[in-house]
């Protein structure tokens, strides 16, 4: 079992608004790849090179409501992992993006009070086991994940979680 300190992820933040859709996160033309790093080079391409450069230096993506709305493309989560994002803090998610995040091992938490407090460039730390987002001296709470989701996340994703279970069954 991970200790609380293992579940703490964070760093510099980049801030987006409401309704960021999957076509903006990773345009459909790049879905011919499943390599996270290659996908990462195209993350947020429609918003321009300046945003992409900032993203590459920001392990925490902060967003408004309905982040990741649109397509079911799993690469919307994997491209963020590929570009070095460790955690997403949003007011809310589209349901498919949230599933894809958990299932690919990307920490995605809903914490509107933290989103209100964060200014772009702030250092933000997310502890998904403790259910806290820390911004400077302040700490904000979110409902911790149910056990089944935590297991998937802590295994590094759904496929890794299943492989771990298969290995256990074989023993």
């Amino acid at each position, binding site marked *: 079992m991970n200790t609380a300190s293992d579940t703490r992820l964070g760093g510099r933040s980049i801030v987006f608004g409401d309704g960021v859709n999957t076509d*903006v996160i990773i345009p459909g*033309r790049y879905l011919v790849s499943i390599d996270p790093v290659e996908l990462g080079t195209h993350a947020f391409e429609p918003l321009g090179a300046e945003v992409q450069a900032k993203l590459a230096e920001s392990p925490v993506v902060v967003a408004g409501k*309905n982040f990741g709305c649109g397509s*079911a493309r799993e690469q919307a*989560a994997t491209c963020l992992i590929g570009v070095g994002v460790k955690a997403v803090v949003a007011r809310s998610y589209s349901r498919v993006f949230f599933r894809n995040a958990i299932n*690919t091992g990307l920490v995605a938490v809903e914490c509107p009070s933290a989103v209100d407090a964060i200014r772009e460039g702030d250092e933000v730390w997310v502890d998904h086991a403790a259910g806290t987002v820390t911004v400077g001296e302040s700490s904000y709470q979110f409902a911790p994940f149910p056990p089944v989701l935590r297991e998937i996340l802590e295994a590094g994703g759904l496929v890794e979680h299943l492989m771990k279970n298969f290995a256990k069954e074989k023993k």
Partner: protein
Amino acid sequence: MGKTFAIKALERASGIDGLVAGQIVDAYPDLYMSHTATWRCIKTLERMGDPDLFDPNRIAMVMDHISPAQTSKIAGDHRLSREFAVSHGIKNFFDVNAGIAHVVLMEHGLVKPGNLIIGTDSHSTIYGALGALGTGVGFSEITAAWVTGKLWMKVPESMYINVTGPLPDGVYPKDVMLKLIGDITADGATYYSVEFHGSWVESLSTSERMTLCNLAMEMGAKNAVVPPDAETERYLLEHGVDLSTVEPILPDADAIYEHRIDLDARTLEPQIAVPHNVDNVVPISQVVGTRLDQVFIGSCANAKYDDLAIAAKYLKGHTVAPGVRLVVTPASADIMAKAAADGIVTTLIEAGAMITNPGCGACAGSGGAMADGEVTLSTANRNFRGRMGSYESSIYLSSPAVAAASAISGVITDPTLVLA
């Protein structure tokens, strides 16, 4: 206390009685659909060490998003999927000629009332047109279901939408959905099971119900459903389903709904979603005259037989405006064949339309790209920036009637003001 459709469907799929909204359960879907993402599922399965499949008969694969292949990489992805289907005994494999997965599966009798169906496509909500609980998932989840037969699902709360008709002439289910998306917003139904009710909904064909359930995704819905009825039975029989194998699920009359929306659509104007979000909806009068470079009649939302027939009705005897390209992509091979037999294809071609092979086509960015500054009016379900070519181009969304009337004039045109 009565139960909603979603509670009953997930009780059946999980084998657990007495579910309540918010609970997370393991559910066993009846069908796992993968489209062009199939090769990603196969690669994921290989990474897992190629374990045995839970039930090959619950797997359906449709090569729809990029068809035919545009590059050797994509041709290789298709070949991998084709060969995997043969080697793993997957009967429900539909190749690049078939059309859009959702429509193809329904036409082939693979979607039944009461089923739980997951797909690597957000618009899997469309299966509710036949009374199934359809929902979109990622490709890793489809792969996991191939192996384990199950996936985790949160039991959703439900939204009751009642629409009062009839609609004015020239106004269609697409307009009703755009109005609802604009009102409810792109996340107003997030995580909800959306149920469509009322005498107008009951009067709709299965094809029209597909448009409703498909577009409910654009309000964030987990799934959407029209309670199955005599029309559903008619469609199932027409598509070779043995009704004795069907166990429909209906919501209880006293079910608890978190939200109820009533829309009186009797005086509704045609509706348009303007760039770059689907909930950016205005009545057509606000954007009439907007110059167009391209009109696209396609997608799982609005390229079914009745959609093509409506377009042909407006286009018959007219020609597309100079400089405007009209791209028509039938949703499936069966629809294309029927439209060809009935003269609809000829009417469209004579008007200047370009008919492409069935599939997702321009909606998925496969052909029909725009240059910088260009504008497309599309019958599809998304108008996100850059979805059809340049990041500096624009997409407006409408019904097939608006699309056809506008293709003739070259600007956004109200079909209710044009004699069809």
